[in-house]
């Protein structure tokens, strides 16, 4: 990824994209607020890779993923958009 592209990213997104996902907690995903992270952990989604898995299961369809995150996990539109963008960018970098 070019340096200029990363300059426009939030520090949180840049940090998330700077290395493999590993065993990072779900709160590391850009767009996942503290409250949303609690909701996700309650549903068993405690790791970022599980959220990534859900995104992949939805064929990386951002609209579908956002709908699921809003309806099933209580995300706001903004949180859903940021996190789907984060996962999309991660897939582009690492998959």
């Amino acid at each position: 990824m070019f340096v200029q592209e990363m300059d426009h990213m939030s520090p949180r997104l840049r940090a998330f994209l700077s290395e493999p996902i590993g065993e990072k907690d779900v709160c590391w995903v850009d767009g996942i607020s503290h409250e949303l992270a609690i909701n996700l952990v309650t549903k068993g989604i405690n790791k970022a890779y599980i959220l990534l898995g859900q995104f992949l299961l939805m064929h990386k369809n951002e609209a579908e993923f956002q709908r699921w995150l809003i309806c099933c996990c209580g995300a706001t539109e903004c949180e859903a958009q940021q996190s789907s963008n984060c996962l999309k960018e991660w897939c582009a970098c690492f998959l």
Partner: protein
Amino acid sequence: MTTSQKHRDFVAEPMGEEPVGILGKKLEERGFDKACVVLGQFLVLKKDEDLFQEWLKHTCGANAKQSQDCFGCLREGCDAFL
């Protein structure tokens, strides 16, 4: 433990959009047409060996060896790239 050439090829590079040749048409029929979608299922099952193999057997009739091989492949791929 020796691995097949297919296994080594699969693990050697990031998975992405390649077709699920290993698992066959049944997975495709159920919407799992790309390796990354099967990876998604693996991750959603928290990389649990028993759960994933059970899912694979149930979804496409994979036998024990096939499901073990698939699990092993995905686990190694994740260790290398995820």
